[in-house]
């Protein structure tokens, strides 16, 4: 449909116009320049060596009474126009420092009179040798990971040296072996891949090209992924007193080449408690060993402990038996003071259990949970402060459950008891 309408051809008109303009510049303009270019008045020939070392001095002398002409220098770094001073062109040192091809053209009255080309050669490698290392640390996994040392030898004007200049690399590996390589530069660079070995530590690297040495470089080889490990416990007080701590430590965690894992490697410790609840604890390794303190459970039974590191790294499972710390407790109720006294709580060895242990009291009709803390062997409830008649209640402590039925007297509000 669109094609049928020929009006779209008008769209080509601007292109046509542009074409004309381009054609004008291509053919017509060029001719103008060419027509003025054969206007030379004298002849001159350069008499220069084919090549020079970087940093040499160069000046070009013209015959006496030469008219004022200019010199064009063209190198890979840029272009310079030089003016004549007393029949001579002094080529700046900055130009002569740069290795590579240098085009020299003499101009007179906008025309080239003479042209030549010289090659500026780089000098020998100069100190310090520019070197780069990366990555700075690799995993000591027997050759999977590698790092690379790179040197770019340059002369004192920072020109890259000749292709195939040999660079000497020497390594001192963590296992004590020494290695040395001579690698010629290619495309300005000389490089060597360093494959990891099996021992963790520093590889010290030195380089030398001609007489130029470089800084000491170091490559760090680091331990790989940890392997399954053991856990063991220590200093255990085998009663479920919910107070004392015992120590847990892992064996030395190592990677598959027996390198100790790095400090700070996180170990998760997972515990299924004697009452079926869970613990999630963490610790990290120092010298390959992670240590932590674990609190005794509150109920007798078996505690299952295992540890792991993400990535299928697991330990053995440790089962620890805990005995009950108290067997029984008494309950007494004082009608006068309306205080419910629970205790004494006597531990496995005939001692008071520690302060702060929680006694749970459930008011049965309302299923309301109250908590009291054991202080010096006893837990006390001031029932007077509870505003309601209480009835039957259940008291739980360390897996022992007891029931008691207390009927409170209905308070006589008019009596106005002064006690706080």
């Amino acid at each position, binding site marked *: 449909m669109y094609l049928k309408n020929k009006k779209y051809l008008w769209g080509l008109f601007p292109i046509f116009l542009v074409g004309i303009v381009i054609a004008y510049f291509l053919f017509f303009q060029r001719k103008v320049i060419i027509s003025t270019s054969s206007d030379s008045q004298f002849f001159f020939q350069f008499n220069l060596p084919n090549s020079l070392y970087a940093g040499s001095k160069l000046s070009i002398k013209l015959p006496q009474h030469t008219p004022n002409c200019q010199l064009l220098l063209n190198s890979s770094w840029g272009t310079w126009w030089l003016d004549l001073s007393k029949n001579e062109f002094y080529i700046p040192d900055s130009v002569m420092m740069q290795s590579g091809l240098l085009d020299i053209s003499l101009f007179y009255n906008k025309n080239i009179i003479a042209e030549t080309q010289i090659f500026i050669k780089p000098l020998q490698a100069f100190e310090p040798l520019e070197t780069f290392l990366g990555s700075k640390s690799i995993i000591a996994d027997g050759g999977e990971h590698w790092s690379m040392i790179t040197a770019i030898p340059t002369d004192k004007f920072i020109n890259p040296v000749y292709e195939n200049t040999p660079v000497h690399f020497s390594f001192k590996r963590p296992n004590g072996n020494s290695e040395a390589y001579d690698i010629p530069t290619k495309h300005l660079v000389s490089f060597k891949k360093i494959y990891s070995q099996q021992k963790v530590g520093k590889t010290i690297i030195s380089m030398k090209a001609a007489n130029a040495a470089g800084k000491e*470089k170091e490559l760090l080889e680091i331990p790989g992924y940890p392997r399954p490990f053991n856990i063991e416990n220590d200093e255990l007080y085998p009663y479920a007193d919910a107070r004392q701590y015992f120590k847990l430590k892992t064996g030395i965690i190592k990677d598959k080449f027996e390198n100790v894992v790095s400090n700070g490697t996180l170990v998760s410790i997972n515990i299924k408690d004697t009452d079926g609840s869970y613990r999630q604890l963490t610790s990290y390794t120092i010298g390959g060993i992670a240590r932590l303190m674990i609190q005794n459970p509150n109920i007798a039974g078996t505690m299952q402990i295992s540890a792991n590191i993400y990535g299928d790294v697991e330990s053995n499972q440790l089962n620890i038996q805990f005995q009950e710390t108290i067997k029984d407790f008494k309950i007494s109720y004082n009608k006068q003071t309306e205080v419910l006294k629970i205790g004494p709580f006597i531990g496995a060895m005939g001692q008071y259990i520690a302060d702060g242990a929680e006694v749970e009291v459930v008011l049965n009709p309302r299923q309301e949970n109250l908590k009291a803390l054991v202080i010096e062997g006893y837990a006390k409830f001031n029932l007077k402060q509870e505003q309601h008649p209480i009835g039957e209640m259940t008291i739980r402590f360390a897996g022992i459950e007891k029931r008691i039925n207390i009927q409170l007297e209905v308070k006589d509000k008019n009596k106005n008891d002064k006690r706080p």
Partner: protein
Amino acid sequence: MLQKSDKLLLIALSVGLVFHGTIFFFTFDETYDSFVHIFFADHYARSWFEPWDNRWYTGFNVTSYPPLVHQLTALLSFVFGLRIGFVLLAICTVQLLIVGAYRFSKLWTTPRAAGYAAIFTCFVSSIIETLHLFGQVPTLMGISCLLNALPEIYRWIRYGKHYRLATALSIMAVGVTSHHVTTIFGMVFFVAPVIGLAVLDSRIEKNKVENQNNWGLSLSMREVLKHGSLPLKITILDFLKETWLKRKQIMLFGLAIPIVMMFVFPYFYWSKTDPITQVSIPHGSRDSFIEVPSSGLMFFLIPLGIDLLLLPYIFSRVLTKRNIFIGLSFTLLLLFGTGGTTPIPKLMLGEDAFNILTLDRFTFWASIIAIPFIGEFFYRLIEGDFRDYLRLQIGIWPYHLIWSFITLGCITLVIFIINLSTFRPLQPSTIDTKPIIQFLERDQHDKWRFLTLGFGDQMAWLSAQTVSQSVDGNYHSARRLPEMTTRPLERLENSKFKGIQGLGSLQQFLTIPEKYYLKFVFSNDKFYDPILYFSGWERIQRLENGIMVWQKQDIPPLPSVLPEKNLPKFVKIYWGIMPLLALLLAFSINLLFVWYARFQKKSKYEDGYEKDFLTLPTIKTRLFILMGIWIFTLSTIIITVFVRLLLSSPNDSPTKVLTAYYDAVDFKYFTTAHGYFNPKTRSSFEDYFIKLSVEDGILASYAKLDNLYIVETKIDDETYELKATAEWITPVEQYITENIHKAVRYNGKWYIEQPKFDPTTPPDTFIDEAFLSIFGHGKRKAGVEPTAHEDFIDRPELKILSARMIKLDSTYVVVGELQNIDNQPAHITIQANLFDEYKRRLVSYNAKYVTIHRIMPKETIPFRIEFEETAWVKKDDLDPAKFNPKEFTKFDFKIPPKIFKLMVKAVVNKNDVYRSVGVQSVKEDGTKIVGDVLNYGTEEVSIPKLLIAFYDKNNKVKWVDTHFLRYSIRQQRMRGFVIERSIPKNYKDVYIGTDDDFYVNGLPNSSFHVPAQTKMLENHILLKNLESVSIRVDAFIGNPTIY
């Protein structure tokens, strides 16, 4: 030979010099604005002709404030330094103000009374407040120029000598360049009444000469007469006629005003070319003074001061026929000054103007208008007709009593205002800025922006001393970042006091600091520590002055070229030259010209002004009765309120004692708090205090009490059970605590029972733990060179294990999990970018605190990223009814995102790697998960944060949540927690990310290889719905022992 009245002026000037000159040295660094002006002065001292300053708000234009005072301070600073320069300038301004007040007074009253007014000017409470409390020297400069210009305007209008037009305009030009707002409003409230007065006076003079009979509405002029008491009649028509005769003067003056205004042309140019719509900042002067008495005190009672007591006299004088114009102006100003107490100012000014203007300046101007009349009152009371009248009517001693009472009131008020900052500190105590300056100058730290927290207005002084840039600033008109212009927030600095809007802003800055090149935070307020820590900042140093320096790792330095809003060169030069030129002009016209005139024919400059003097009205008994009643009533009210405050005791009722207790705890007045405990059962204060001192945690140390609701339940007459619901603001979220207290009556007073402390004793007296301590040299060779190539440390390698995008109603969230597979602890920055179906980027944001930013080798960490928009952009969002720091503004997704890319980067982390804290006794209990957090290490955990990750059946993270525990956990102790088991109800999976969507340190996630976890992880707790949960603890240690 000096006139008698001029001697009083000399006395006033010396009193002003000694009084203000001595005191301002001690008060200026406690004021609100002094340092801001000093900062501006510093700007001019550094670059006079470049109005752009990069140091605040990521760059702003100083053409937003009239420059004269700043430029003069800058000039003085070259000799005296900034601080002394500013003080000297302020002293000069006060001198100018006293002269101005004297000359202004002579328009309304006798010269002798004007002398009294000049002395009174030294003690006007509004001026003292403006100078010694607010530090607003430009305002004072503006008003003093205006006051000095007014008599000149009067003389120009009345006598029409062109020389007076020149003096009037030149003085006004100086006023414009120091504070243009004063001049603009002064046109209405000062200049217009004075022009009216001049016209009226001309008419009165004519009447006196002609004494014609007039017809029409009579304006009897019996009250104030000139030259005796000829009964004159002036009608409105007369007045209009006279105005018509003066049209040339009025027109010329009116036309010249825009030209004078052009002295601050760049200001108008700036406001026109760079319009920034900003949310206005709430100001106390707009409050209802009855509902907010503190605002009423600050913005109404204190500035008016003694004026309030003498209000009947002022009104009796200004509401007379001759003074009717200034009377109208005074009444109007007083009315506007009442702020939001009555709806009238809002109706008259309009909603917009009401919300932009700070209304206290109206009160200020009202008090300035009152000066001549108060001066006159004192003149009459001390040596004039009042004295004779009172001595005759009520005796000598009562007369002495009366004047000493009023004078004493005035003096008391002055002492009170000057020392107000000591009674109730308005600013944090003075911070030694030197260590901070040195820190910023050291090791290229000024290549990043910084932020100060809890510095108050001293941040301006800090900025004035350094070239380092702050994202914050202290001059709200120049706020440029949308994060700030959209909020009623002046400074991030004090965001604590601005509730959610402030903290919301601050959280955005701290969560994505890369955007602002923000690397250092100087914290003078512990309150902000938790938010800094949990959003991934670390403490690096406590400076000698006690300021904690926090830094965020991995922030790129500022680019060497910063965006700048350039002004035309002409405008820059204009701004640099014109203010001083105005001052120079005024100087030469007013002083040199007058001096020159001494040699000229005097008549050329003379007019009748000096010969023209006023008489005072006769005494009226009813005025005395009215004033007596007024003063008596006012004093009674003030004394009653004061006595009530003194006598009321919190022990009067159970609710009162509990409220007082909570207040005492909030302000950490522990002796007072202990006093509210039942004396019969409480432990000794030492015991209470020592038990309290070991308590820490977000509520005890990092919270501010916001609201308290108490419900009383009566048990018997002597005992009440009180349920206290307290709302606390913390930097991370809002807490609501519910506690049951028991109140008992003892000796007729109410007390509460002392709360019990945890009696648990840890089993071990001594514990030890191996601790990982890391040090990074940074640059191994000290020097100014950039860090050498070999000193760079490789970025730790991470692996993103899984991530997915979730839709919750209209908002999107990215959750996932990653692992540190390296051998060094890593500090991580997790950024998620959302794209629509055409892969156009919609939004990107960083993980805030739903993750752990410091990750140990081989550790896995879940994270959740929410997408926030610059909050409160929309108008209806402006005023959230309730404070909630947890709340955030959801990004408004116009196009639904389809995929996301996760960019994670890491640097080696050295600090905050405490891991000896875990959970135990964790069980599922109905819809909740309960358990205890146990600290089995050697550091006290100030704020434990639980990071709860829910996993689906394939062990991939489904949802991540956080829970901040309210109390600290000491070593070998635990605290219980209860969290919801469920994930959000409106949860909907959108896209599950693959390795192609994940990037670590700029490389694809697939380039990192680690063994995969194939089995169900044992540290996941299996839930009844066959999904699992893991709970980790991020421990903020407030006072680490290793620092």
